[in-house]
């Protein structure tokens, strides 16, 4: 450990050499290398956390760059975990960086988590958040939670020294269409920067044993008013006694659904006329759409089903693939027995084709 490098932390009363040594010995796993994971990893690496693990299956995309500030333009298209390893190593060559180019799954979660002291939940979806919660309870690891919606963020530390867990706040996973994610809803680039840094701070407090850890308290940060509110909550009996993972953490209401991906849809579009319904808003549709798409915003769908050509196979598309699932749920209710096909990933995955049509 280089004293000169960490001099400003070593000089700090109540942190000192001991705090620095504890960081050096700590092993932190960050699940999700997106808007939240990037600032967490960046600061923990710079501050001298000895071992960092990163779990993420994605590649860098252009629309990540406005909030995932560790990625350069030249890194678009390469796996996020590789880009991160090269950036973090250049900043601090003494950190051991372990990368897992995979999603966290029921099959791998316990095996990965067991090697770390603390887990950071920096994911962007409910199934993984509930999986992390249950795996951390089973493995007896504290985990530092952060999540966003529009202009707001939440932070808490769960399963810390017998404290409450994520399920004590939100016992069961919301339905797939109940709560939108950032890709659908949008997010100001700076918000995950703030929430991720608040998570990194909690990681440091847990490791170094300084200050009051935000356990049993949910922080609610609002960017528009720049106010931070707090809600206290308690451990609910049984939530810290989970012994095995669920068989699946898919959304409970997941529909049995036919779907195509961007490449398949493109082949279909070039092969024959198809009935393709775009259920996004007027504004989204005007900005960019596929030439073949018929536009019926989700909110008008039940009133305008007469416009659908039910003789053809009906494909449904939205921005990210979530509202199109919702639309299909509605259509299946109206026309039981008829198949509707979801375009997975929506317009977000069509961007390479959209200009050519």
């Amino acid at each position: 450990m280089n004293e000169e490098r960490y001099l400003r932390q070593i000089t700090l009363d109540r942190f000192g050499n001991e705090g620095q040594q504890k960081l050096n010995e700590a092993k932190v796993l960050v699940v999700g290398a997106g808007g939240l994971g990037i600032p967490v990893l960046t600061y923990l690496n710079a501050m001298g956390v000895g071992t960092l693990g990163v779990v993420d299956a994605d590649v860098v995309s252009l629309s990540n760059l406005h909030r995932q500030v560790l990625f350069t333009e030249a890194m678009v298209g390469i796996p996020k975990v590789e880009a991160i390893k090269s950036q973090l190593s250049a900043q601090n060559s003494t950190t051991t960086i372990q990368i897992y180019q995979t999603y966290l799954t029921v099959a791998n979660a316990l095996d990965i988590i067991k090697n770390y002291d603390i887990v950071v939940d920096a994911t962007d979806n409910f199934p993984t958040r509930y999986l992390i919660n249950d795996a951390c309870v089973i493995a007896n690891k504290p985990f530092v939670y952060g999540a966003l919606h529009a202009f707001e963020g939440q932070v808490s530390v769960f399963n810390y020294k017998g404290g409450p867990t994520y399920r004590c706040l939100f016992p069961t996973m919301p339905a797939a269409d109940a709560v939108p994610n950032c890709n659908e809803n949008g997010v100001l680039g700076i918000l995950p920067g703030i929430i991720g840094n608040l998570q990194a701070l909690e990681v440091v407090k847990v490791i170094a044993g300084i200050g009051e850890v935000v356990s049993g308290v949910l922080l609610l940060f609002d960017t528009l008013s720049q106010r931070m509110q707090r809600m206290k909550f308690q451990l609910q009996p049984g939530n810290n006694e989970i012994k095995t993972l669920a068989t699946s953490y898919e959304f409970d209401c997941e529909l049995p659904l036919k779907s195509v991906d961007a490449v398949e849809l493109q082949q279909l579009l070039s092969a024959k006329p198809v009935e393709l319904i775009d259920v996004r808003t007027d504004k989204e549709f005007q900005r960019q759409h596929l030439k073949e798409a018929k536009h019926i915003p989700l909110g008008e769908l039940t009133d305008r089903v007469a416009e659908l050509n039910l003789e053809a196979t009906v494909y449904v598309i939205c921005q990210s693939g979530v509202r199109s699932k919702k639309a299909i749920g509605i259509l299946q209710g109206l026309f039981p027995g008829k198949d509707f096909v979801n375009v997975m990933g929506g317009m977000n995955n069509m961007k390479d084709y959209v200009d050519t049509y």
Partner: protein
Amino acid sequence: MNVLFFGITKDIVGSSEISFSDDFKPINVAELKKQLISSYPEFLKLNSLAVAVNSEYADDSVPLNGNDEIAIIPPVSGG
């Protein structure tokens, strides 16, 4: 009685805060949830909804008083 809304509930209600006049004030958290569902059916989908009364998590049985500070906190998933 003022109720603050966070996350998707702010979008559902279309406002970050609503007031209940004393005549229509729910007597407890369960009653508040029922009133919200009847005014805004989308609340039905939020099976996990935390309610804070005076900055403490409150289960359905917690009674509500006129000057309580109430917050409706749904899960959020973005990252």
